[in-house]
């Protein structure tokens, strides 16, 4: 099953199991969504549970908040993660603060097709996860495999909090894998994607695959790849345990470097595992520029397996 099919499967299973679950967003109905993530759901569940919305991200996010506090479990889709900026206020000021203010749970999921690598240009390639990590009350997830895409989506739908679910567009049809049938939930904890003893590469989303490719450049057993899976809550113990085992850490972000998720990981390691380190905390990320359109330009900014391997080589030799 592809990563994309795993998302559709997770949605379908959740909607079959719980009639409070419904889907809303732009073109998610009979058309099945811009990326076909909701394909077939309209035929099975009808217009009330698969709701086409006008182009209005504030309305998509805000009505999802209202429906959630009324007791439903909305799963909203923002067509491209970039467009979440148009609904940012509802997410940060309304959804994220609601439980702290009122005690009302806001069990909603916002699906955010994110990331670059396909010549989407500056408005269709962003990785906005750090915006939401900085806003209290929002959970932030970024699966890298089909199994996790389904398992984390189903767990997110069952969660009582607003969840930003960053599904990577570049993985939709490129990544395939076995996915458990039926109800499948994955905890919001990190996963060791590859074991190694000399260096930890911390990554999430599409960068897990880039990191695994980079790790192939070294003898087996040297480079560990830790897939964060969840950015909020951040699995601090798993990060620290891995870094303490390997004594070196390289953190990879597809997002723009300044204040990216990886910066939080770097701060954590510096604060709590400093004495276990045998080298500097290194990062590879997209420079602080919009993602360009032209393929050569795009490849010039996004972290590639080669760039990650080069940084890993330097660290291993440190």
């Amino acid at each position, binding site marked *: 099953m592809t990563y994309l099919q795993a998302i559709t499967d997770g949605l379908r299973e959740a909607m079959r199991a719980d009639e409070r679950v419904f889907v809303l967003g732009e073109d998610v109905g009979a058309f099945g969504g811009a990326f076909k993530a909701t394909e077939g759901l309209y035929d099975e569940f*009808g*217009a009330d*549970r698969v709701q086409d919305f006008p182009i209005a991200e504030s*309305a998509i996010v805000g*009505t999802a908040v209202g429906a959630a506090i*009324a007791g*439903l479990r909305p799963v909203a889709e923002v067509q491209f993660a970039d467009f979440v900026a148009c609904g940012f206020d509802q997410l940060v000021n309304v959804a994220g603060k609601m439980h*702290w203010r009122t*005690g009302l749970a806001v069990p909603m999921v916002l699906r955010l097709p994110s990331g670059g690598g396909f010549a989407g240009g500056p408005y269709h390639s962003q990785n906005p996860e750090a915006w939401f990590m900085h806003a209290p009350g929002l959970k932030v997830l970024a699966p890298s495999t089909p199994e996790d895409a389904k398992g984390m989506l189903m767990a997110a739908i069952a969660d*009582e909090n607003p969840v930003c679910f960053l599904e990577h567009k570049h993985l939709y049809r490129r990544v395939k894998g076995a996915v458990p049938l039926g109800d499948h939930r994955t905890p919001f904890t990190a996963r060791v994607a590859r074991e190694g003893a000399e260096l930890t590469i911390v990554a999430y989303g599409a960068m897990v695959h880039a990191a695994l490719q980079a790790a192939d450049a070294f003898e087996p057993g040297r480079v560990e790849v830790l897939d964060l899976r969840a950015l909020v809550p951040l699995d601090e113990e798993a990060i620290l345990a891995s870094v303490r085992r390997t004594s070196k850490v390289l953190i990879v972000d597809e997002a723009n470097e300044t204040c990216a998720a990886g910066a939080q990981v770097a701060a954590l390691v510096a604060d709590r595992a400093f004495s276990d380190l045998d080298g500097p905390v290194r990062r590879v990320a997209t420079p602080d520029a919009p993602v360009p359109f032209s393929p050569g330009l795009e490849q010039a900014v996004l972290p590639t397996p080669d760039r990650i391997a080069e940084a890993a080589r330097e660290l291993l030799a440190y």
Partner: protein
Amino acid sequence: MLTEEPRSTASSSPRGRAPHSPEHPPPPRPAPPAPPRLTAADRAALLRFMVEMRTFEERGVALYKQGRTPGSFYDGHGQEAISVGAAFALGPDDVICSPLIRDLGAHLVRGTDLAQIIRHHLGRDNALSRGREGNVHFGDVDRGVIGMVSMLPDMMVVAVGLAMAFRMRRERRVALTFFGDGATSPGAWHEAMNVAGLRREPVILLCENNGLAYSTPTERQFAVGPAERAKAYGMPGVVVDGNDVEAVFAATHAARERALAGDGPTLIEARTMRMHGHGSHDDARYVDPAVFAAWRERDPIATYEARLRAEGTDVDALRAGVLERLEAAVQAALAAPLPDPATATDGVFADGPGRTLGRGDAPWSGHAGPEAGR
């Protein structure tokens, strides 16, 4: 007579229902409802809530000026008829999302405890906000009232979402949302209006047009007023005298009937005047004193009080009762402790099912049956 019990919360059929597509026409309309009738007890209650709002807010300004209230204090002097009249038309399962800066009356009508409200204003430990917010930022979830956020009109969008959930579950309830003239400018207002009108959500959109958004008059706020714009979004726009509590009640009642019949939202524009600055810190020097003088003649409490006094209501006893309750509430609030600082970061995330929206008071006799309250 209205039935106030919500319908089963069981969801719709698996196919769901298009809100108003040709193959799924809206349900047939029931016979037009009888116009709402207010008993003498209803009228006394309307006056009492308005007096309670003003009396408390006068005391609130005093407490603020004495330095006992942290932050700031905002009041709705002169606008009491709007939130009192609108909330009075609601049934117990209806939701208010959210009362704003001049809408204390809505909280009082729903039955929220006055001492808790004062504790909230004073930053004391309280059930409404636990000291996390101040001044007008509070709700009473147990009574179906959700507190406002400052990014107006964000909660109007949330109200549309609540109404959407009610419709999807075929529940017989509506959401009421308040907003000011200034809140009609941000994009979220237009998104809420568009979705509410398009989907015929059972929501009442109540605009308090008091002529001023902070210091900006409506002439510099919009070229086309809210009620006129409503038509463009596919809903009626009804203008009422915001200083006439019974007019606001009747308009809200009609909008609620319309929503319950499946005919969708109504925008009510209640026209009034803000009789003071934006908050206690603002002397409103930008308003011509003659404007205030003219509007003072139309004070919603003085005019209604004169009418009820002429009809035989014992207004003095009513006022004395309000003062007595207020004084007891203030003393209780002043004696309450501050919240435990250790709780400041509690509850950012829900670790289980959260609180659920409760039912509010519905003091209008019409909700209990035509003979109630006589």
